[in-house]
């Protein structure tokens, strides 16, 4: 069975210079699409990517990269909306590059679709009541 998941890989500084993603792709036959990345030598880094492949290979690949010291998070939990602070104004809608904010034309309520979010963070500072929060 094929799976496709969006994940955040956190690299501790000691392994930033190892070719972990290369090994992941080559040895486990996974394909990937990098959505966002920040890797600087000798510092902590992260990569947001969509990984896809056969379920058993995917599981083995995740096991490999975790044992190498990488912390893995599911991306959908990274940017969250604080529903108490959101006023449904809509300022986020045209700022989001992946159209993760969707306006209901009837009620004019703004919904946030986690599956479209690539955790770029643009909405966080663009949101006037600061309702969008980055969670790691």
């Amino acid at each position, binding site marked *: 069975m094929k799976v496709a998941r969006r994940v955040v890989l956190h690299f501790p500084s000691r392994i930033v210079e190892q070719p972990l993603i290369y090994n992941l792709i080559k040895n486990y036959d996974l394909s990937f699409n990098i959505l966002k990345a920040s890797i600087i030598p000798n510092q902590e880094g992260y990569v947001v990517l969509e990984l896809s492949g056969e379920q058993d290979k995917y599981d083995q690949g995740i096991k490999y990269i975790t044992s190498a010291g990488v912390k893995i998070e599911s991306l959908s939990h990274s940017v969250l909306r604080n529903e108490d602070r959101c*006023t449904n*104004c809509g*300022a986020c809608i045209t700022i989001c590059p992946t159209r993760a904010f969707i306006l209901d*034309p009837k009620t004019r309520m703004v919904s946030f679709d986690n599956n479209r979010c690539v955790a770029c963070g643009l909405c966080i*500072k663009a949101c*006037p009541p*600061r309702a969008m929060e980055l969670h790691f």
Partner: protein
Amino acid sequence: MAKSISEINLKIKQGKAVVATAEEIINIARDKGLARTAREVDVVTTGTFGPMCSSGAYLNMGHSKPRIKLGGGKVYLNDVPAYTGFAAADIMIGANALPDDDPRNRVHPGEFNYGGGHVIEELVGGKDVRLVASAYGTDCYPRKQLETLINIKDVNEAVLFNPRNAYQNYNVAVNVSDKTIYTYMGILKPRMGNANYCSAGQLSPLLNDPYYKTIGIGTRIFLGGGTGYVAWNGTQHNPSAPRTENGVPKRGAGTLAVIGNLKHMSPRWLVGISMLGYGVTLAVGIGVPIPILDEEILRYTLVTDADILAPVIDYSKTYPQREPDVLAEVSYAELKSGSFKLQSKDIPCTSLSSYPRALEIATTLKEWIISGRFLLSEPVASLPGIEAGITLKLLNERC
């Protein structure tokens, strides 16, 4: 067959008043016709919820022992400076005030995560706020330093007093330059990559009473979740702005100064706001009831988003340089569709004011009136209308 406000109030007290929101009234009048609707409906409720920079609150702190003269001294609430040009225990905090150590735009665009608007939100939410004051000391007010927590429930008065709210229509902001700009109208992408507007349109108070025939000084309103009053015309009140045939202004025109007891308001309707690269402000919820005294007043409340035009203004040059150019006029119906066409370009657009919250205000006010807990007030004086001949003055420097 005209009604009076006291007749409407009698019906409210008897639980017989018929109330509709400014959205509902459009279809009611379409179905029943003008004459019958004007007879049957007593009040139309409006609402708006958006950033309103000219907002603030004054507080009387009560006197410390020994006494301190805050007037003429320095006062900070959660590090945000308050105005102290009043008597010993009175201070005022403005929505746009920033902590002295806020980096502002030193690293552009500044984040502006906390300021006066947030202090007001925390006060009204019942949170403790840290007051730090220094004064020069006098024979009758000997104390020079004060640091304490305060809470809205412990101060004598906490009054929201906003010099300019509820703008009757507003600009649609775009950016024609080649780089992103950060404005009070939000983030504007280069080459007209997006557009932001800020009005509740057909629900907005002054767009439903374009000639200020019922809204005047002393009108009781929904303010910040409590009740308040129209205190005066707002600053920059400009009834002479160009209008469509049905009287609706095509530019920012009338404004309201409003006042009310902050102690009875709620943080749901007074929200501290941060505009990236610009500053802090306060989103304010306002709802104004319009008594349907006759057919003419009813007709004004039937305005729809398609009837209201707003000017598209370039905020990269035209606005900052105070140039008069308007790129186009678009209706709120077009704006609410999510994009509009300008110079053969489709411009995605969105709102900075919340229509769902505006509707919630109009609906809440309707429920207050139906349940008899909110009576209409008779204005004691009118707001300046077109006949006042007001022209907006500009600041021209001189030596």
